[in-house]
């Protein structure tokens, strides 16, 4: 079983709980020291000399669905004895990461280069998988055997590899000394990923896993090491970081590098309450006033959202009457005195920051193709990072400005798609209020194709009980939708 967890952590979305079963109670007085278990593993897989005879290693790996039909993962990994490595991933998302001369780096099309620091860097350095088995003494000197448990019907020692920020646990067959299973457990006790060895291969005197059953939350797939070669890398080129990373590193050294956009977006999520608080966000009921600043008009408005795709919004504009729009989850619609009723394409999350739907805020990676930090700019006295966001299909881009001091989103500029065309929209978040553990924008200045509006929320109710009938289709919309099957989605 080889280490490639650091790479996998970024490969797939699933990170849900996968509880490892405790199959037998530990009897501490009968447990051997970790040294005995781990050294035995090195021995039965080829011995210390064999492990250390390799200067470099390259392997091609592939993950397939259990029925073998779908390729879920494809990557190439190159490593050196000195601890450099590079992992080039083709599927499911292109990207690369590695360590070169002690610099832990990553690069993704999503957000470009990033230099890993702190515990993240330490973990990357420890992840030099090639020497891990043979060099556990230096990498995990505080490891200990915690229990004897049964895995796949085999009694195994459960060994905690320590220290590591995310706890690595390995199970070794009492009978053969071989690795049976490896898991990565979060600090909260959740199993992030685990690999159970299915088959082995022997090459150049070393025994290594050939296929493994991988589990990441609900996702189970078969991981195969398709090809392994030793001592055939051209150094240092084959493990050197790519040019964009090198440029970024030089900018960092010169003190002119901008933070990675991914980090800025995640900081906003953290500062505005954190992903967990957003995950708890279900219903929204926001009431407020929309002030048309240049037109001497004020409109009352209310937005209700169920968190499951149903929403209803009304705006009472003096002189124009009530503008309504909504969706019951299947049919989206709008209605106004001027234009009458109509069914319309359902509102989709764009990833461009036009809604406060939790799925859009914390699920932003699934909605966008690329994020890049472009500049530092001063807006209304706020020092901000400007981030360019490209939608998943590449048809739209948005600019976001994140306040350097607070980390919160300060402004969004996007061309909003409407039935009448693309409308330049600039939202400036001027005030926030703490509600249900989230900082919620309660004053938003809007510049919509030259018109200026100010939305002020006077009541923000999150996760309150909503009357479900508010999302029901009005009768005339139901009739329209019935006459037009295309309106039903």
């Amino acid at each position, binding site marked *: 079983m080889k280490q490639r967890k650091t790479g996998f952590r970024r490969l797939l979305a699933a990170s849900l709980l996968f509880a490892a079963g405790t199959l037998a109670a530990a009897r501490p007085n009968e447990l051997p020291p970790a040294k005995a278990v781990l050294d035995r593993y090195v021995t039965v897989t080829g011995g210390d000399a064999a492990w250390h005879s390799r200067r470099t290693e390259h392997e091609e790996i592939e993950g397939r669905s259990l029925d073998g039909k779908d390729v879920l993962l494809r990557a190439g990994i190159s490593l050196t004895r000195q601890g450099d490595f590079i992992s080039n991933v083709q599927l499911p998302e292109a990207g690369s990461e590695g360590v070169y001369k002690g610099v832990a780096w990553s690069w993704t099309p999503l957000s470009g280069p990033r230099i890993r620091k702190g515990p993240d860097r330490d973990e990357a350095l420890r992840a030099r998988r090639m020497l891990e088995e043979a060099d556990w003494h230096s990498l995990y000197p505080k490891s200990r055997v915690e229990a004897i448990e049964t895995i796949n019907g085999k009694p195994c020692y459960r060994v905690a590899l320590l220290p590591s920020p995310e706890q690595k646990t390995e199970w070794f067959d009492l009978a053969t000394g071989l690795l049976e299973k490896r898991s990565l457990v979060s600090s909260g006790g959740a199993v992030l990923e685990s690999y159970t060895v299915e088959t082995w291969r022997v090459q150049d005197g070393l025994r290594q896993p050939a296929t493994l059953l991988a589990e990441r939350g609900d996702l189970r797939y078969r991981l195969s090491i398709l090809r392994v070669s030793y001592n055939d890398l051209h150094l240092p080129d084959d493990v050197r970081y790519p040019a964009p990373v090198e440029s970024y590193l030089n900018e960092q050294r010169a003190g002119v590098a901008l933070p990675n956009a991914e980090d800025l977006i995640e900081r906003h999520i953290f500062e505005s309450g954190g992903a967990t608080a957003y995950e708890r966000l279900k219903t929204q009921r926001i009431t407020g006033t929309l002030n048309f600043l240049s037109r001497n008009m004020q409109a009352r408005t209310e937005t209700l959202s169920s968190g499951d795709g149903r929403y209803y919004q009304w705006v009472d504009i003096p002189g124009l009457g009530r503008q309504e729009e909504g969706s019951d989850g299947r049919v989206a619609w709008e209605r106004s005195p001027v234009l*009458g009723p109509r069914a319309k394409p359902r509102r989709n999350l764009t990833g461009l920051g036009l809604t406060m739907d939790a799925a859009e805020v914390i699920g932003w990676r699934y909605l966008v193709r690329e994020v890049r930090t472009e500049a530092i700019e001063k807006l209304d006295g706020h020092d901000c990072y400007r981030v360019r966001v490209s939608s998943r299909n590449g048809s739209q881009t948005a600019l976001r400005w994140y306040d350097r001091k607070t980390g919160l989103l300060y402004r969004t500029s996007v061309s909003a798609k409407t039935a009448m065309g693309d409308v330049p929209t600039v939202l400036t978040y001027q005030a926030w209020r703490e509600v249900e553990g989230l900082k919620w924008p309660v004053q938003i200045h809007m510049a919509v*194709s030259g018109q200026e509006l100010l939305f002020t929320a006077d009541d923000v109710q999150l996760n309150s009980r909503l009357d479900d009938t508010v999302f029901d289709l009005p009768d005339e919309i139901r009739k329209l939708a019935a006459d037009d099957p295309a309106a039903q989605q």
Partner: protein
Amino acid sequence: MDSFEQVWRTVRDRHPDPKLNGLDWQAIHDITKPRIAKAQSLDEVRAILSEMLSRLSASHYAIIPGDLYKPLSDSGTAPDGDASSGITPMLIDGKAVVGRVEPGSPAARAGVKPGMVLDSIGGDSVAPLLELSGKLKDQESQRIVQRSVSRRLNGPAAEPLQLDVLDENGAKKHLEVERQPEGKLVTFGNLPQQRVTFEARALASGAGYIRFNEFLDPVSMMPRFEAAVKSFAKSPGIVLDLRGNPGGIGIMAMGIAGFFIHQSGLKLGEMKMRDATLKFVIFPRPETYAGKLAILVDAGSASTTEILAQGLQDLGRARIFGTRTAGAALPSDIVRLPDGDGFQYAQASYTSDKGKVLEGNGVTPDVEVRQTEGALLAGHDLVLEAAENWISTPAGR
């Protein structure tokens, strides 16, 4: 000099095309500034500014001499108030003529008849306004003068209108006409309060007839419009009388078009601003009218009226009757300059579905019908009659 700078800056910042059609606007500024500094009179300044604006090769960029504002102003001799006498004026052959008298209105009761020539209003001669009409050649200016006459006919309800008219024999008659509030008083944004009137009736020919004076108050007007269209469902055609209608809320053109277009995905036209292009999309109503549609227009028809008429003409859905419209289909604005002159400029360009530029051009009717004093005096509305004849002709358009 301040006026020059304001004009130059406004064009730079608000012209729909940020590149100003490739003009080196800064260079034009630098060439013009010394000439302005040397100008000896306001007339000379106006001439230089007009020459500068002519470089834009676009309509509705104009310097309006300050003295022309005096007769157009609501202040001074013009009465205040919104009560109506029931008279709709028209400009025919350089005269202000009574174009329409609302049935049952104070004017009708006082004996005012279509075709009479307005000689003085509230004791003030109409002649100065008509002289302006002669000076201002374009359709938009004609509209401004016509509206100025309309405003003078309105006033406080407590103050009867003193009117001198020339009858069918050219004899001068003095009439005292009561005024009464007509229509619903509507407020919308920064617009002055307006009285909105709506009329729907069946014509003797069997066609339906709908008329409203402004594209405002959709909350009450659109349901009435819908009810009227439904009531004419079996009529061979509908006449939409938009003569004198200066426009209003632009998207109401989309809303009204939706009653006559059943096919989704069509549009009336496009409005291009500096940072966006907005399509005037037609959203078909659940029930649409399939019969003939005639739209009546004149020089007083502007803005939203033109967008609707031209769009439906482009789509082949309506036949337009009357005279060319004002050619003021854009969100243009007029600002006062420090020297007292006015400066009119467009904030966007508008093209119809078939790419016709309405600004400065107006809508050209399919059937041009000019109203005459004689016909009015004889009780004929030639434009309406032409539309009715077309509707009643089985062969179609």
